[in-house]
Each structure stands twice: as structure tokens, then as C-alpha cells.
């Protein structure tokens, strides 16, 4: 089963993404911060990660940078999900190694399509 790790400090969004992906047949690991995201990624080696940019302890960009340095995880696709729609944030996200980028407010359907597209390219 394809495993997706989702990290967001907003419980509404975490639950919504978790439910939408589980409903579509993915195994989901949902965590509320960046540090836990990194720990869980190292333990479970997910097929895809969806990370909020502005999270406590470790931002989504910090996690992306750490994942790209990790030899076991460096090829894991990452979708960044953030409230920041500024161009420089998008650039920062891609520079850190993100595969795709979505801004909040987001459409759960669109997120699912992006997940399928990214996994279709990589898994």
C-alpha cells in the first residue's frame, strides 16, 4: 500500500487531508509538526510527503532540506502546502527540493489529483 506522510499544525487541515487520502486508498501517517514528520519519515519511509511550510519546531522547508540530505529518503517526493502564496516562498520551496507546491486555501480534490500525478511519476 502506498504510504503518505502528512504534516500540518492545523488540526482541521491535517484531518481533512488525512481523510481524503485514506478515502482514496492510501495509508496515511498524520503528524502535527516538522520534527515528528522527520522522525516518522525515517521510521516508515513514506512514498510521498505533504508538508505545511509554517510549522512549529521545524518548518516544511527545513524538513525538505533534511530529507534531501538523507541518503535513504532523498528521492521521496514532497508536496509543500502553505498559506504563503508569495512567489519567493514558492522559489524557496523548490530550491529546498520540493516536488510540487500548493497554496492554502486549497481544494482537497486538487490535492488528491496532484498526489496521484506525483506518485504516477515516481512510484
Amino acid at each position, binding site marked *: 500500500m502506498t504510504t503518505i506522510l502528512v504534516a500540518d499544525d*492545523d488540526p482541521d487541515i491535517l*484531518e*481533512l487531508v488525512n*481523510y481524503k487520502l485514506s*478515502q482514496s486508498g492510501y495509508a496515511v501517517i498524520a503528524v502535527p509538526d516538522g520534527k515528528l514528520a522527520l522522525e516518522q519519515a525515517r521510521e516508515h519511509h513514506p512514498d510521498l510527503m505533504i508538508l505545511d511550510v509554517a510549522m512549529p519546531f521545524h518548518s516544511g522547508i527545513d524538513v525538505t532540506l533534511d530529507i534531501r540530505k538523507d541518503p535513504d529518503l532523498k528521492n521521496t517526493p514532497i508536496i509543500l502546502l502553505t498559506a504563503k502564496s508569495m512567489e519567493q516562498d514558492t522559489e524557496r520551496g523548490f530550491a529546498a527540493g520540493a516536488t510540487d507546491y500548493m497554496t492554502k*486555501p*486549497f*481544494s*482537497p*480534490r486538487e490535492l488528491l489529483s496532484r498526489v496521484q500525478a506525483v506518485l504516477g511519476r515516481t512510484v
Partner: protein
Amino acid sequence: MRLALVVSVLLLLVSILLMLLATIIFRFVRTKLEARSATYEAELRTMLVRFLSEDLSLSELRVLKKIHSSQFDEISEAMLTKVKGRAKDILVSFLYSRGAIDQAITRTRKFGYLGRCKAAMFLGNVGIPEARVPLESMLRDRRRDVRTIAVRCLGQLGKPESVPALLSAVDDDEHPVPFGTVLVALMRIGSSGKELMKAGLNSGGGQRRAAIAEILGMEGSTEDTPDLISLLENDPSFEVKVRSARALGRIGSPKAIPSLNKYLDSGQPTALRIVCCGALAAIGDRETVPEIISLLSDGNDQLARAAANAASQMGPTGIKYLNLAATSNSKGASFAKEALARLAAQAPRISQD
């Protein structure tokens, strides 16, 4: 006497004990209630997520008890700002069916200003066309913070029909609103409101035309150059003239050069001369460099310094003229040297690594 003292001390001790007990009970009950509320919140959030994912029907939600349904409405309202597309449509239909939107419209006229603020924010987040008229009425609210929120929410709503009301709001001295907030709202409405905005050039006060000039400059369309030239040359308001000059610089059309040049004249107010100088630099036509350099010898040091900075932004021609001015014996030599030094300090460092 002694007995009375003992009784008083005892009474005091008993009251302290009772107060301590009451505090402990209060804290215990509050913790229990918070824990229960958190449990319900988690359950209600799951229900909302299932509802948004179309796994739970509206009729299934009707089983909620009254106390839970108001908590559910709160969670739904919080979700409004987080989702878009189909999920948001479902959420808005649900809030309609609950009467939350009609209630918010009614709350926009209630006495408590916090309630009016909340109602405005809710209507802005819902983003339905019906929210426009009540939000526009709030532009004349007696509280400035309510009016400010209404402006912000009208921008969020993004309906071009709101443009006349927003422009009237900047002119309304009895119900003032922050000028910058109106500009942001007009920017969010964008080009769809442009025709209505330009219609406002022929009516109302100076603040309205100043706002229009600012927005036209930020949009940066060359087709608006004639309107802005006309504002610069004919408008009685000094603020409108300054903002129009700056807007012409942002647009960058060479058609504005003759008008901007006219306002470099020493008979004009310094602020306008400085802005026109900056606008000419932004347009960047090298033919205008000598005119700008000539301002280095102006009696007004502020203008001379602005002219030197403007020339430093005009590429090789500007720098060539600045170097000439810097080596001359003219009054402007020091300003030219200053601008060149600033330019040198900004140059990127190149390292061998």
C-alpha cells in the same frame, strides 16, 4: 473578648477553606468541561471532514444536539478560510441551510461592534455575492474598525460592483477609512473593476482620484497614461498630482515624459519635482538624463540629491553624466559623488571561490 477573637479567627479560616474548596471544584469542573469539549470538537471535526468529502449527508448531520450543532457551526466557519473548490461550495451550502448567512447579515446591523466585526469577517470568508450589499452598508458604520474590516472583506469578495462604494468611502470625511486598506481592496478586485474605477475620475473628491491614480499606476497598463497625464496637469489636488506622477513612472510610457519634464520646473512644489524626477528615472529614457543632471545644481538640496539618485538608476548614460558632474566644480559635484558611491556600495561582491 477572647471568645469573640477566637470565633473571628475560626470564621476567617473557614472562609479561606471554603474559597479554596470552591476554587478546586471550579478548576476541576472547568478541566472536565474542556476535556469533554475537546473530545466533542475532535468528533465534530471528523464529522465535518466526512461531510466535506461527501461521505456524510446533510440529513445525517441533523441528528446533532443543539449544543453540539453550535460548536459544529463554529468549526465549519473556521474551515471556510482553509478550503476552496467543491469543499467550500459544500460548506457554504451547509451554512446557508443552517441560516448562518442570514444571521450574519442581520448581525451586521446589531449594537455590539465585535459582533458586527465578526459578521463582516464571516461574510468576507463565505464570499457569496449576497454579502456585498451588507458589507457596503458597513462602510458607513459608526466604528472605524468595523468600516476597516468591511473594506478588507469587500476586497476579499472581489466584486467589481463594490468599486463605487469603496471610492466613495475614501472621500467620506464623516466615516473615514484607511486609504491603504482601500487601495489593497481595489487591487484585489483587479482589472474587472477598472471601468467602474475610471468612471470615478469625473466625480467626487481628491482622495478618490488619488486612489484611482495609485491603482492605475500599480496595474501598469500603458493605456491609462493619457488619464494620468490629464490628472497630473489638470487636477486641483496636489496629492492627486503627486500620485499621478508616480503612477506614470511605474507605467513607464515615454508618452508621459513631456508632462513630467514640465513639473521639474523651479516654480513647482519640491515634492512634486522630486516625484517627477523619480518617475523620469523609472521610465529610463536616456534623452532625459541631461535634464535630470541639470537639477544637481538646484538650490534645493533635497531635489539635487534625488536627481543624482535618479540619474544613478539610468544605466550607462546616467553614470556617464554623473561622473562628469562629480569631476566638475559645480554645486552638484558632491551629490553626484554621493550617488556614485552608493551605487558602488550596492555592486555585488565577486569572489574567486
